Structure formats: structure tokens, C-alpha cells
């Protein structure tokens, strides 16, 4: 087998090329060393604020993706008429011409019929081409059926609150100043999450300086390993802990930031017994109670002296309470005793955590940074996958977020920061720029870049529920940023008779059969569609479903203009802004082709270039002279050049970026710690959820959709058990998954250097069980066991006994256990967790479309 297609040049070729990593969504800056046409080393690019020259194990190992002999190198056509899991597709190599003819023909037919019958899904592993296509091709084509890499498992719930509280897509703690960091089921800078490599440096510095790190996690994860205190918790119960902490802070310790709540949140907004803000009849604006005048006023009334945030006020025979009062009352039932029973955390610990957190916030203190005086709240929480990955995601996330809000530790030094919600732009051009505003209600209105900015914070909030005809439920529940809920609705024709069914699935990378839930569900949903799989491997999804596979370039073989989305994975805090370029280190090997370029050609042949160009202009905010003309064909290089020139001036075009790799300039204090300078208020009381919930309920009733339940649409924090929480007869344990720093989901199990780590490390290829629990069950280390899910599905693996896991929990790393023929190296390594998770709306939080990612299970011994 030829190992490389690039020809050695006559002159010795020896160059370091700046580019961008693509082994996870963080897009760290890299320098790639090419010698005689071969990539021989990847290092971090010290000039890039994405990692500052330091990479994680995955980023360094990317070479093995480029040269993996198991990659897909040619377009493939299925010759086995049977689709199915474990089926050998019997790929036949075809030429690109034939492949393009097939693809264009299929797409043209769908477009003629109903564009919404084109579904597209993709992987966050290859973020740049995915975003580009979602933002340009899909709108141009006219389909809104976008499902992304399993948002129902990913960050949906957090992203909503990042939008309403932080005007961004996500958040990160300000560890440059935090003294107390409380993590609920996540590992920022400790192995995972956004801006991993930069956060790792910041968190190490913070810990060295004495920041206290507390990690709430059922498993002794990489993050918990470094914690000053590991707080093992029963999975799915984080909301109860956070509610109890809120109760202690607000009703017992009396620790909260009155000034912040008054000015920067809806805390004073009066809420009626109907659950809605009390609004001024003329303007429709929310009202507050003016303590001085003893009367209700519009929240932005100039005469307002001091709004009440506690108390209860009678107006025209009706009682209204400020949102903050509602919150205080809502959490009273959450005594530490009750929370302790639910979470299995000792009462004293809960009390102590609340007190420590509250005191660490130093309510009232200020700090001077770069000559600007700012509120100083050096206490932060962060939560992600572990805490919100349950069907109680919404109230849980809200409870944890509000811990920061009530002490004012939000978007000020030391607190929880939105991921770059304010950008003044490059000093020369003032672009790209965005900034939150206040809505009519005075609430945070996130700024956006272009109109179609994919996965950006939406400015129109909340989208109005209109119907239930889209499989992703985007017309019904339109605010989650990513959704892969489609299998749940598609597989339930009785409840969703009218939804558009997919005629063609364009799958860019996502291995949804493995990453979504039980693979049978994803298979069932798309088995009747014509499936175009664009991938670098022939993975499980391709082999079970695809009719045709297009060989993509990997990130080291392609050009991706602006791979960075600054509100996703750019580090928070002061430091540099940075825009980068991803460029080919070697020419695409074999017949691999860049997906973005393929889609440009597809658009051309479909005759949608005009709308595509328009969508591109909108997405990147391109203005004349750089905006794309309607009637012209552009190459990806030309588009990239225009984006760069549009944003950074003619001197900073594509060629400049190719040469320099990254353009940086310093952040300003007002960009980073923007809250004191902003007018939009964060929402403590989520009136929009009440409103949307009622609308959704109404639609569900009209259309008789019993699967759509709106009990979870609560405006304030709460907790209820997730599906896997309570024991069912015979099922006595909960199974969870966690990430390790050296694997990304399922893809990196193909990467030998990373596999070598797992082979040497004793946990990540095993099922971790508490040593004492194993003893009571007569189980031993290395036993072959089967885990059987109470909701169907089972999986086998070997046991690892450890003291570092909650006694009621089985913990499994990432997403292993591949079975595809096309992944011989990865096959059978690790454990396939998702077989335990069913895919249906019952296991989902409908506010955020988040799935319960833990399973109620029992364990059986299979062999020694």
C-alpha cells in the first residue's frame, strides 16, 4: 500500500506551517513540520492564544490521522443492498464524477420535491467545514433540518443559559482571579471542555496561587484528581445540591449581591400569580416596586429610586412578588437534609460548600484592573455534560447558574464569564464585532456577527414555537443550539405523523450511530433515506446506513478560513484576541476532497450559487467591496480571502494569514468584564419558559401529541429525579460516562498513540466499579461483565475495581467498543456506553432537548 501520495520534491523541503488543530472543537494553533513532503511533527503555535504553543495529547497525535492506512481514500458506493448494523456494505470504489452525479441527482430531486426532506448532521470534531456548510449551503438549499453531533448529549441546556445570562454560546470561569471554583460534572482545563489547552495553563496557575478547586462528580475524574475536595454525588442529583446551596445562601446565610441583582438582573421585576411579569398596560414593559415611592413603576422609569427585590406587593387586589422573592421562596423546600438524602452528600458538606462559596464571592468588594475599577467576585461555578446530561437538565442548570448570579459573580473579575460576548473588533477595522444589547423587556439581547451565524447566540429570543413538523423539533422548541432529537420523533410516527421525513441525509462526519444513543434508534430513523456520508473513515454509521461515502480531507490536508468561533472556544479573560487559518500541510492524499469545496461544486450544479453567496455574505457579515456577487462562482480560497480582507483590511488577506497563521490584538477590560458596562439584564426568573411552555402545550394539544409534555417548563430552579435516578426492581446501579483528556468521543480510538495511553492506564478501557460494591456482589477486578439497562440494551466489558467511584455507579470512559469493519485498529477497544441509552422524548428534558445520559442498570458476571 502506498503510504503517501505527495511526491518528494527535488529541493529539500523543510518547513514549519502555522495551522489549526482539528482533533476536537477547540481549534488550537499548531505549527506543522513538513520535511520532503511528509508531515513529521506537530507542535503548538506559541503565537496563538488558542493554546499558547501547548497542545493536548490528541492534538500532538493528529499525524496518525493524516497517515492512518485505514482512512477512506476514494468515493465508495454500497453494493450490499441490505443496510444494517454490523452489515458489510461491500464498498465499491467509484470515481468522483460518478459520485458527484449521484449526489447532485439525489439532491436535485429532493429540492424539487421538498427541500426540508434534506437532513444534515455533522460532527463537532470538524467544526469549521460543518459551520460553513450549515450556515451557507443549508439555508441556500432551503432546508431547516439541521441536526448536529448529538446536541442532546452535548451542551444544549448550558447554551441556553449562556445566551440568557452571559450573551454568549458558552461560559468559562475567570480563573485568572477566582479563588474558589466549584465544578459540577465537567473538567474545564483539567481534561476537556472549551479552550482546554489555554484553560489548563490558567487553572494550573490558579491552583498554584491557592485557588480552591471543588469537584462534584460521581467519578474520580481527571478534574476530581486535582481537586482540593472531591464531592462524590449520585448521578442526576446536582440540581438538588445547587437548590440547597441557594436556599442556604438566600434564606439562612443571607449572602447575596443586592446591588448586582437590582441593576443587572430581573430580580426586581414583579411576577404575578399567573407566572408572568407584571407589565405596564401601555408599554407592555415589566414593572418593579419602587420602595421610595411605594408604587409600581416600569423597570426603566427614570424616576425609579430603589426597586424592591424582596417582599410581596398588592396591586389592584392581586399579589405580585419580585423575581428574587420568587426565587427565595422556591428554594425554601430545599433543605440541606432533603438534598443530602437525594445526593448522598453529607449535610455538613452541603452547608460548608454553600458557606465557602458565598464567602469566597466577597460580595461588595472591588478590584482595579488596567486602571478600571470593577466589582470583584472571586467565586465561580461551572457545570457541563455530567450535571446537565439528564432529563432534569433545565432546572438543574438554572440552579447551578443562579449560584453565581445571586452573589453577582457573573461577567465580572473572578466569576463565571460568558465566552467573549463583547468584541470591539480589530483596532484598525473594528471588525468583527458584537455586543449585547437590552431587549424591550430590558433583558440581555445577545449580539451577533452575521445573520446566519451557525451555533451563535440567537438574537431573536426566544424563537416562537410555530408547529411540530420538523423532525428536530426546531419549529416547536427552537432555542437549543444543536439538536439530534430527530430519531426520537422520526421513530414515533404515531405521535408525530406530520413531521417531514428525510429523503436524503447528508452526514458530515458524525458517527451518530455510536454517539447519539442506542444505534438501532438512529439506524431506524434514517434507514429509508438516501444517505451521503462524508467522512475520513468508514465508521459504524457509514457502514450501517450510507449509500455513498465521500472521502473527506482531514484537517491537515485542507484550507478552512476562519476556523475559530470566538464565542465557543476562545479563552475567556484578558489576553489576546486571535483569528487563525487552517491550511493544508500536505496536499490531499489519494482522492480525498475537501467537503467545503465539494459543496461549492454541488451548489453550482444545483444552481443555487446565488443564494449560497447571499447566505455567505450574511453569515460572515461581508459588506462591499468584499461581499460576494450574486452571479459569480467563487473558490474557497477567494471566499476566505474576502472574509479576511472584509474583517481585517486589505493588508490582511488570505496570503497574510497563510504566512503568519494568526492575527492577534489585546482584549480590553470592557470586553472581558463587560457586565458593569452593559444594560441588558440577566434572567433569574425565566418568564420566557413559562410563555413558550404554554404555547408548546397548546400546539401539542391541538395536534394531539401526548409525547410533548411541558411540566418541565419551569421558570425557576428545581429538581426532580431523572429517568435513571430511582431503582427499578432488579436494577440497582447507575451507569455514567466521563471523558479522558486523551480521547475525543469515539474517533480517537483509531489513533495508536492515544490507544497506547489507554493500554497503559488502568481505567479508560474498563468499567469502573467501587471496590466495596464489587465485594458485596462477589465481583473481581478484570471480570468480564455485562451491564443490562432497565430501558433496554446491554453491553459487555471488563471490570476495574477502584475506590474512586460512587458506590452506586458504574463509570465508563468516552465512547469505545467500535465494531466497524473500516476501523480495524479501534475495534473492540474500550466500552460502548451508548447501547444503554434509549432514544425517545421520555428520556429528554424538553426545554433544552437534553437527554438523560445515565442509565439505570444491573450488572452480571459473564466470565473471569
Amino acid at each position, binding site marked *: 500500500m502506498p503510504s503517501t501520495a505527495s511526491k518528494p520534491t527535488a529541493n529539500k523541503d523543510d518547513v514549519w506551517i502555522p495551522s489549526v488543530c482539528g482533533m476536537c472543537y477547540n481549534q488550537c494553533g499548531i505549527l506543522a513540520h513538513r520535511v520532503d513532503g511528509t508531515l513529521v511533527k506537530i*507542535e503548538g503555535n506559541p503565537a496563538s492564544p488558542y493554546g499558547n504553543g501547548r497542545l493536548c495529547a490528541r492534538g500532538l*497525535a493528529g499525524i496518525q490521522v493524516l497517515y492512518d492506512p485505514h482512512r477512506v481514500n476514494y468515493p465508495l458506493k454500497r453494493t450490499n443492498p441490505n443496510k444494517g448494523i454490523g452489515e458489510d456494505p461491500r464498498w465499491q470504489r467509484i470515481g468522483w464524477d460518478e459520485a458527484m452525479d449521484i449526489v447532485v441527482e439525489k439532491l436535485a430531486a429532493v429540492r424539487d420535491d421538498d427541500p426540508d426532506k434534506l437532513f444534515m448532521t455533522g460532527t463537532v470534531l470538524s467544526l469549521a467545514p460543518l459551520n460553513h456548510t450549515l450556515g451557507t449551503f443549508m439555508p441556500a438549499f432551503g432546508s431547516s433540518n439541521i441536526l448536529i453531533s448529538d446536541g442532546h448529549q452535548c451542551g444544549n441546556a448550558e447554551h441556553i443559559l449562556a445566551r440568557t445570562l452571559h450573551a454568549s454560546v458558552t461560559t468559562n470561569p475567570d480563573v485568572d482571579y477566582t479563588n474558589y471554583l466549584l465544578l459540577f460534572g465537567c473538567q474545564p482545563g483539567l481534561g476537556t471542555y472549551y479552550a482546554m489547552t489555554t484553560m489548563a495553563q490558567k487553572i*494550573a496557575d490558579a491552583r498554584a496561587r491557592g485557588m480552591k478547586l471543588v469537584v462534584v462528580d460521581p467519578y474520580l475524574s481527571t478534574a476530581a484528581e486535582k481537586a482540593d475536595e472531591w464531592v462524590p454525588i449520585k448521578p442526576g442529583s446536582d440540581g438538588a445540591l445547587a437548590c440547597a446551596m441557594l436556599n442556604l445562601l438566600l434564606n439562612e446565610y443571607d449572602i447575596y449581591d443586592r446591588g448586582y441583582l437590582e441593576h443587572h438582573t430581573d430580580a426586581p421585576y414583579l411576577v404575578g400569580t399567573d407566572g408572568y411579569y407584571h407589565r405596564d398596560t401601555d408599554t407592555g414593559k415589566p414593572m418593579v416596586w419602587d420602595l421610595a415611592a411605594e408604587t409600581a413603576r416600569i423597570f426603566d422609569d427614570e424616576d425609579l429610586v430603589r426597586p424592591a427585590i424582596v417582599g410581596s406587593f398588592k396591586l389592584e387586589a392581586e399579589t405580585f412578588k419580585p423575581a428574587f422573592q420568587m426565587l427565595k421562596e422556591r428554594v425554601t423546600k430545599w433543605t440541606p437534609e432533603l438534598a443530602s438524602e437525594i445526593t448522598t452528600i453529607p449535610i455538613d458538606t452541603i452547608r460548608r460548600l454553600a458557606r465557602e462559596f458565598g464567602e469566597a464571592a466577597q460580595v461588595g468588594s472591588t478590584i482595579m484592573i488596567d486602571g478600571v475599577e470593577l466589582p470583584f467576585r472571586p467565586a465561580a461555578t461551572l457545570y457541563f455534560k455530567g450535571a446537565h446530561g439528564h432529563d432534569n437538565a433545565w432546572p438543574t442548570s438554572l440552579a447551578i447558574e443562579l449560584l453565581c448570579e445571586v452573589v453577582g459573580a457573573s461577567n465580572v473579575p473572578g466569576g463565571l464569564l460568558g465566552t467573549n460576548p463583547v468584541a470591539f473588533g480589530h483596532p484598525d477595522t473594528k471588525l468583527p464585532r458584537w455586543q449585547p444589547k437590552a431587549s424591550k423587556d430590558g433583558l440581555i439581547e445577545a449580539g451577533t456577527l452575521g445573520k446566519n451565524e451557525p451555533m451563535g447566540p440567537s438574537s431573536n429570543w426566544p424563537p416562537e414555537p410555530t408547529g411540530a413538523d420538523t423532525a428536530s423539533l426546531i419549529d416547536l422548541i427552537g432555542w437549543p443550539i444543536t439538536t439530534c432529537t430527530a430519531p426520537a420523533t422520526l421513530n414515533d410516527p404515531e405521535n408525530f405523523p406530520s413531521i417531514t421525513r428525510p429523503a436524503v441525509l447528508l452526514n458530515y462526519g458524525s458517527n451518530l450511530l455510536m454517539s447519539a444513543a442506542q444505534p438501532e434508534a438512529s439506524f431506524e430513523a434514517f434507514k429509508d433515506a438516501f444517505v451521503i456520508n462524508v467522512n475520513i473513515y468508514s465508521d459504524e454509521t457509514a457502514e450501517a446506513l450510507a449509500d455513498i461515502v465521500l472521502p473527506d480531507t482531514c484537517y491537515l490536508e485542507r484550507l478552512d478560513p476562519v476556523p475559530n468561533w470566538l464565542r465557543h472556544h476562545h479563552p475567556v479573560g484578558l489576553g489576546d484576541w486571535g483569528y487563525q487559518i487552517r491550511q493544508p500541510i500536505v496536499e490531499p492524499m489519494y482522492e480525498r476532497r475537501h467537503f467545503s469545496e465539494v459543496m461549492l461544486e454541488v451548489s453550482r450544479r444545483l444552481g443555487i450559487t446565488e443564494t449560497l453567496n447571499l447566505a455567505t455574505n450574511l453569515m460572515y457579515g461581508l459588506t462591499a467591496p468584499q461581499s460576494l456577487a450574486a452571479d459569480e462562482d467563487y473558490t474557497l480560497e477567494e471566499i476566505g480571502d474576502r472574509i479576511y480582507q472584509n474583517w481585517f483590511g486589505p493588508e490582511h488577506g488570505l496570503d497574510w494569514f497563510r504566512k503568519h497563521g494568526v492575527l492577534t490584538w489585546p482584549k480590553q477590560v470592557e470586553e472581558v468584564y463587560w457586565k458593569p458596562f452593559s444594560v441588558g439584564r440577566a434572567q433569574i426568573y425565566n418568564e420566557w419558559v413559562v410563555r413558550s411552555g404554554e404555547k408548546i402545550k397548546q400546539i401539542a394539544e391541538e395536534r394531539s401529541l401526548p409525547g410533548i409534555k411541558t411540566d418541565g417548563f419551569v421558570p425557576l430552579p428545581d429538581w426532580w429525579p431523572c429517568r435513571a435516578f430511582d431503582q427499578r426492581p432488579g436494577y440497582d446501579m447507575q451507569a455514567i460516562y466521563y471523558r479522558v483528556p486523551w480521547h475525543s468521543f469515539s474517533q480517537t480510538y483509531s489513533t495508536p498513540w492515544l490507544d497506547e495511553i489507554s493500554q497503559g492506564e488502568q481505567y479508560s478501557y474498563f468499567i469502573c466499579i467501587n471496590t466495596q460494591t464489587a465485594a458485596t456482589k462477589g465481583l473481581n477486578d478484570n471480570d468480564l461483565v455485562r451491564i443490562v439497562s432497565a430501558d433496554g440494551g446491554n453491553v459487555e466489558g471488563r471490570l476495574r475495581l477502584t475506590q474512586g467511584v460512587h458506590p452506586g455507579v458504574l463509570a465508563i470512559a468516552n465512547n469505545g467498543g467500535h465494531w466497524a469493519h473500516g476501523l480495524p485498529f479501534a475495534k473492540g477497544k474500550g466500552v460502548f456506553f451508548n447501547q444503554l441509552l434509549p432514544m425517545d422524548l421520555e428520556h429528554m428534558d424538553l426545554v433544552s432537548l437534553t437527554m438523560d445520559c445515565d442509565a439505570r442498570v444491573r450488572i452480571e458476571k459473564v466470565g473471569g
Partner: protein
Amino acid sequence: MRLGMVIDLKRCIGCYGCQIACKAENGTRPGTTYARVLKREFGTYPNVKKQSLPLLCMHCGDAPCIEVCPTGASQKRSDGIVFIDADMCVGCRACMMACPYAARYFQDEERNYFGVGMAPTAYEVSRYQDHQSGVVEKCDFCRHRLDQDKEPACVANCMCKARIFGNLDDPESEVSRLIKEESGFQLNAEWGTDPSVYYLPAER
């Protein structure tokens, strides 16, 4: 001058980045990990700690590997770097028996990463040229990088800046300062090997 390293166990998160940084720098064969990480648990639930311990050749001041080497292939430079001259090594592996830190790897066969029977990738063809088989290999503090005024790869890449490199003989150097101020210790000093790699305790 005595070159040495400090590994701050408080900063290290056990991410295995150093293991791969070293692989990437030195293009070593499967199974050879000049830099590697051990994880150990202490205590019982819920009072349990997991501790990661990054390892590499300790560049011992009193190096047993050199003492037992019959050919003189294992040597020490005047700056304290212990290295192996592959052209002199006969692969007797006496040094592997003597090294208590498991820092040495015998290159037995020409294996490739994608498995038995797989052709070497272009990358492997290029990088394995630098490695003989039938000899023992180990960390040499990235001599070639030091020549170019760069830090060792595992140091330059560590995301947590848990590895610091410098001159132990210079009391002003950062390594010396850290060892002094933060109670640096050698791993198993009782073995009498006098390592040039020091650790800073995980807990202050």
C-alpha cells in the same frame, strides 16, 4: 553545569501530554515511552486520592545503568545528561536490569503503530530512520533541542507548565529555586541514584 528537571505534582493533571509530546519529538517506536505517566490511588472511598506521576529518565547522578554497561554505550555528559550511543550498544540489556525507574526500552523488532502486518506509514518511514533496532533507547533530555536552544519537548508542551528545566548547579535557576522553596524531592532518593529530576509535592 548539571541539567535537571522539576516536575510539579501539584500542577500536573495527568493528561499524558508529555508522553505524546516526547513521542512526537523523538519519533519512537510502539511501546517506547521515554516520557510516561503512572496513576495511583490512595485511601478508601470517599477519602481517596488519585495521583499522577510523570516519569522519564532521571539522569541519575550516580547512574547504575552506566555502571553495568559492558560496552560504554551508556554514558554521561559533563552537563549530567545520561545518554546511549546506539552505535556502541550491543543490546545486552544489563542496563535495563539496573535502572530502577524503568526508563529504558529495548528496540526488539521493527514494529509499526498500525499493527503487525501493516506497512509503515510515510511518517514512520521518515522517523524510524533515526532509530536502530537491537539496541536500548531512552530519554536524553532532548539533546538535539537543547543544541537549538529549545527546551525539551515534554517541558515546552506541558499544558500545565508542570515541567521546568534548568541548571541544578546554578542556585539562581528556577529549578534550584523551586527545589529549595517548595521542598523538591528526588524519587526514591533512598536508592542512592541521585536523580537530576526532582518532584514538587502534590499537596502544599
